[in-house]
């Protein structure tokens, strides 16, 4: 399986602006109430830049997933501000947030979250259908995107007919098809074997770095740390370290 050289997400890394994609300041989030309150995030400050692959790492329950949920606008923080490409989620209504998410954010999930009754091409077309692009055009564009992730021959396959790696490729194509500016990935390799996970990371890095967009990956898999441009280490709801040298973090 090869990724086509014809880059579907053209951008010049040299000219990439490395602008701030996400700016989180003083984010707190607690679950439960009273004596059962769990503080998931305790004053998070973090910047994610375009053209970079940022990893959020740390032990289970440290707040990684809560943080990307807030960054992606699918969860509201209790305090603090989270600004995505200059827009503060706090100032948006639910409807505005939903629409903004549909335009600006792509998602890749640990368990792929493909709709089992749709073919690969139809699954990839969903973000375009959400944006009211007609079905024929959407499926056509989805087909092109799938070719670019090496699945040009599996357009009509149902998710159940694909391997785990192939399903994650479909999910990546789905996250890219509408050309969002932020892609959030939750443990994208944890359901895959090492070799497949490595290839998936290559694909993600290629997509993120060749497009003027930011990529945030939540993981606790040290084998993929090398793919990161920056790693934010979290513990107990706080960012304890941000490193531009993933190799050091890996150690």
């Amino acid at each position, binding site marked *: 399986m090869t990724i086509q050289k014809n880059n579907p997400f053209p951008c010049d890394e040299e000219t990439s602006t490395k602008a701030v994609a996400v700016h989180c300041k003083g984010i707190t989030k607690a679950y439960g109430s009273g004596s059962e309150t769990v503080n998931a995030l305790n004053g998070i400050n973090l910047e994610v830049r375009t053209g970079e692959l940022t990893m959020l790492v740390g032990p289970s329950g440290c707040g990684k*997933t809560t943080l*990307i*949920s807030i960054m*992606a606008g*699918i*969860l509201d923080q209790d305090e603090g501000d989270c600004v995505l490409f200059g827009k503060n989620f706090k100032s948006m209504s*639910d*409807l505005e947030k*939903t*629409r903004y*998410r*549909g*335009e600006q*954010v792509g*998602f890749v*999930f*640990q*368990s792929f*979250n493909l*709709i*089992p*009754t*749709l073919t690969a091409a*139809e699954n990839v077309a*969903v*973000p375009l*259908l*959400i*944006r009211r692009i007609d*079905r024929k055009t959407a499926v056509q564009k989805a087909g092109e995107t799938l070719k670019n992730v090496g699945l040009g021959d599996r357009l009509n396959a149902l998710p159940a007919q694909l391997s785990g790696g192939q399903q994650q490729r479909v999910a990546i194509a789905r996250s890219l098809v509408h050309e969002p500016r932020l892609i959030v990935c*939750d443990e994208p390799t944890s359901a895959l074997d090492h070799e497949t996970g490595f290839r998936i990371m290559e694909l993600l890095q290629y997509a993120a770095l060749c497009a003027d967009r930011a990529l945030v990956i939540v993981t606790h898999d040290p084998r993929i740390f090398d793919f990161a441009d920056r790693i934010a280490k979290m513990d107990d709801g706080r960012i304890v370290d941000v490193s531009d040298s993933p190799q050091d973090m890996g150690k």
Partner: protein
Amino acid sequence: MRFVAIKMLVGDRAKYLGIVMGLAFASFLITEQLAIFTGLMTRTFGFITDTAIADIWVMDPKVQFVDDIKPMQDMQLYRTRGVDGVEWAVPLYKGLLKAKLENGNYQTVIVIGLDDATLIGSPPVMLKGQAADLRRSEAVIVDTVGAAGKLSKPSPVPGQKRIPLAIGDTLEINDNRASVAGICKVSRTFQSQPVIYTTYSRATTFAPKERKLLSFVLVKAKPGEDVKALASRIKAVTGLAAYTRDEFKELTIRYYMKYTGIPINFGMAVLLGFIVGTAIAGQTFYSFTLENLRHFGTLKAMGTTNKTLLGMIVLQALMVGSIGYGLGVGAATAFGKLVKDTELAFRLPWQLLVITAVAISLICVFAALLSIRKVMKLEPAIVFKT
């Protein structure tokens, strides 16, 4: 997103078929039970329908329905004829008598006695012979179902099919000889007894001796006369009850609705269909939504608005509702065709289809509401939970 909604629904074959079959079953049960109920109710006033020539039925004020005979004196006929606006008024006898068959058995029959001169109220359809044949001595006309059924003769060869009563055969009614002069077709009666038509004078001869024998007076209004106003006038002048054809049908239905357990029994069956349909379809549809909650969450996270998700669920509910309704109503119609010539009462007017459509819509709305509530409240962050 309509496309995604439909594929999500039909892709899960087992659930999709479960929901459709649940709705089809409910639709069939509701339509079929209502159609049988309507058929039965129609039978209660079948005789009024067959006697369509009369505009007004005059009777004792205590009569509650068409089979509730409270005889009047013959002079009530003349009093009715004297009311202004009456074109004609004729006597009608209706009674349950015992007929002795050729093999010695007795069978209860409905005897209808028509005005000797005009034979007004004669059978709506003559299959053999003519109504005028009633003028022959001892003549009676027998309905075809009764002739082929309860009045039929045993075959001379044991084990062979019974022989239908035919023209020329004889019966004995209250020690009076009656000779079959014709075979007619009438609306099925509620009691399912054979119907025998004869003249008024002969019917009163058949009937046990009583001072009063006149069952009804059939009245025709003069052209241009307001039938309801005439009925009120007859009532005022004679002190009898006078109903238009439709009023008499309504009176009869009201009696059966109020004093018999029929509506309750059928109502229970219809309710059962509704509840079973709601339980099966509602529960399966809800479980379908629950199973797809992660996908709805994914769609929500990817930017699908609540309004679009609502539209998707409504579309899914509408789709299964329409298919289930179509299958159920189709099956009920086929059932109706199958039982057309049997004892089973079945009548399917378009109004019943509307009632079933409303019932199925309610089931779908109920099923969809449960799912909509769940999806609307869904936190999109669910997508990151494994």
